[in-house]
């Protein structure tokens, strides 16, 4: 009896581990797409990238010949899931959604990744840009960025809630500190939701987030958006001035949310995908739904998108160098 138990247990474990080693076999396709296309989100379900991917998947049947299926592969701050796509068969059936996130534009400045963010991935389409918006509590003694700076200058230090250490929001606030002359101490949290909570609760003086994370609180008039760190105003927050307009020269690309395929994907497949994503991005209902949740649709095709990402990567590199930001 005991022997049998042992054997069966080992057998089942063995089958599993073999399955892991072998991986999925490549299936030759006749005409692309001949089966559903996977949208790999390297973050948890429910996050902003995930919501975007699911909205794209929801509208896709109108424009794609096969359904798009969202698969979450969270872990390693996005690196794990992205690596999975990089190592997959370059046939266009496994796409990385979220190309241009922190682990693409910021992390490589601090840490060596197991793949080359630009060399191993082919840009397909930019879907949206998540700006970095500075928000304050609506009952705080300051209602604009100017007022905040005037208030902050009288203090020894003020606190800013940011979603991750040395992430795009952290870098933006450190740059703002330098540009405004206020001693801003950034307090990192584990993700945007935690950071927002402390701004709402009044434990931190100001905070930065992507609009999708604060939209509901802005609508509820609990938070006031005071500035956006983009070159131009964010279409989802058209009334909010940029830092640049306010006289603080802090411009980033925020967090870019695009689609990428592994290196070696046939050009005609990339072309097909880019065309169809463009159609989704032109869908009026899709645009309305995305704007509503604070993720404005900002489509770009493969070439433009690739250049935009490189620029964004270099901007962060410059800021990190300029402000001597380090990970310990």
């Amino acid at each position, binding site marked *: *009896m*005991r022997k*049998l*138990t*042992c054997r*069966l*247990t080992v057998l*089942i*474990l063995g089958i*599993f581990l073999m399955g*892991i080693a072998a991986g999925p076999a490549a299936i030759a396709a006749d005409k692309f797409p001949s089966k559903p296309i996977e949208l790999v989100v390297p973050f*948890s*379900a*429910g*996050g902003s990238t*995930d*919501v975007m991917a*699911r909205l794209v998947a*929801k509208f896709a049947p109108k424009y794609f010949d096969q359904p798009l299926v*969202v*698969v*979450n*592969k*969270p*872990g*390693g*701050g996005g*690196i*794990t899931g992205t*690596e999975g796509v990089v190592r997959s068969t370059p046939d266009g059936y496994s796409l990385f959604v979220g190309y241009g996130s922190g682990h693409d534009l910021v992390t490589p400045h*601090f*840490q060596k990744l*197991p793949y080359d963010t630009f060399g191993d991935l082919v840009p397909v389409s930019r879907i949206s840009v998540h700006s970095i918006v500075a928000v304050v509590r609506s009952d705080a003694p300051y209602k604009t960025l100017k007022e905040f700076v005037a208030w902050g200058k009288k203090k*020894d*230090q003020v606190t800013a809630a940011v979603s*991750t*250490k*040395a992430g795009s929001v952290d870098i933006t606030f450190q740059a703002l500190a330098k540009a405004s002359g206020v001693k801003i*101490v950034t*307090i*990192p949290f*584990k993700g945007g*939701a*935690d950071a*927002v*909570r402390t701004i*709402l*609760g*009044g*434990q*931190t003086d100001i905070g930065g987030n992507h609009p999708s994370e604060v939209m*509901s*609180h802005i609508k*509820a008039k*609990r938070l006031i958006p005071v500035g956006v760190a983009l070159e131009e105003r964010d279409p989802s927050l058209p009334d909010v001035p940029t830092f640049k307009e306010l006289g603080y020269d802090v411009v980033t690309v925020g967090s870019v949310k695009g689609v990428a395929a592994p290196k070696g994907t046939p050009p005609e497949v990339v072309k097909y995908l880019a065309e169809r994503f463009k159609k989704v991005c032109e869908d009026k209902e899709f645009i309305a*739904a995305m704007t*509503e*949740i604070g993720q404005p649709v900002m489509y770009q095709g493969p070439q433009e998108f690739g250049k935009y990402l490189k620029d964004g990567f270099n901007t962060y590199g410059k800021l990190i160098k300029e402000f001597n930001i380090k*990970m*310990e």
Partner: protein
Amino acid sequence: MGELFGIFQGLADGFGIAFSLNNLLFALLGALLGTMVGILPGLGPSATISLLLPLSFKIGSPVSSIIMMAGIFYGAMYGGSTTSILVNIPGEAASVVTCIDGYQMAKKGRAGPALGIAAIGSFIAGTIGVIGLTFVAPPLAEFALSFGPPEYFSLTLLGLLMATLIGGDSVVKGLIMVVAGLLMGSVGLDPISGAIRFTWGIHMLQEGIDFVTMAMGLFGIGEILFNLERVLKTNLVTQKITHLWPGLKDWADSKWAIIRGSFIGFFIGILPGGGAVISSLASYAVEKKVSKNPQEFGKGAIQGVAGPESANNAAASASFIPLLTLGIPGNAAIAMIFAALLIQGVTPGPFLISEKPDIFWGVIASMYIGNAMLLILNLPLVGVWVQLLRVPYSILAPVIVLFCCVGVYSARNSAFDIWVMGVFGVIGYFLRKLDFEAGPMILAFVLGPILENGLRQSLLMSAGSPLIFITRPISGSLIAILVFFILTQVVYRLTWKKPGAPSGC
């Protein structure tokens, strides 16, 4: 008065919505699915809800889809205890602590009462939680917002003190486990400095060790490995199954544990960040502390099942409060429901109750119905599950391993996690052999990161002054309770030794 009337009016409308045939079916479907994923180890409510998200667009009505998703979430809290009790494998993160005494009860032939009391406690606590959600949601949500880093630090410090209570007989072994838990909790990216700790260059470890994966390895796989080397009887139950249902004595023993668990679960559940897990651990510690026979814990005390299983259900209901009233998702499963609402074009927040009362009240009303459905669903299942223990272990064990592998893989679509579970299985095996208790390690693992981040974030806020923990009212009160607690222990020890204490030891 008018406010109360408004609540009853809203609730009445909500029942009108929830009692429609369509929504009743979705509530039942959610409850069924929830029970199932609760039972399947590793596969949790958030993974299930994310799998079902595409389906929710097809349902069309946001109310119906949210009713179903909510059902999956709190239904999983019912099902989670089943495998904890039967085979020592937590079906759900919030049922990890149920393994400790639940499994011991099963080994003594008392699986039936354990499962029964878990279902009844879940129902009572779930209903208390929904009542709280109905009447005091908005003010409580505001209260939860006043919990910042200093408050979390003080609260978890109090919690860690409890960790020393839930261990076994040996204080030294308990402390070793606490330290091991703290160390394991620090694996991954340090959120404050951005430093990468203890990952050996493995990117999968950057976000830390997954709690469910670790618990399944430690408890479940460890137990199976331990059993493999013994000459096994053909089935798990070493004694005759005497009672299928909890008896009057069981009920008398556990009724206060259920009530206490409900309130602990409700209040901790409002706080974002793993409310159900922490509240189940807190409830276990409290039950052990207030029990007249603390030595019974770890050997099959029914309070050790009733308390935590009630707490996690109350916490599940309570975690809807910040979502529905402030638009703040407090845990992974609630974040999925948040995303589902967004995709349906509904933004949860303070306006939900006035702009979409059908969703607000419809979902709340459905939770009363869903809890009743779950009780009716789960009680007859007790008999079925107990029969499962008659399956020869030579068949049961490999099947369990199979389900564990599938479950762990499905949580993050990651094969790496299966290896992690295997490693913890081996660790669990040695802990069993060397007679170490996993409880304190689990608690320290959960609380350690919250404690560390709270401390460092607070000190950043105060420019290094520790006074921040005392000067803020809530944090200060918590610290006062902590000091009072330690002082009473000291005084108790001192006075207890005085009258004619035997010399020596």
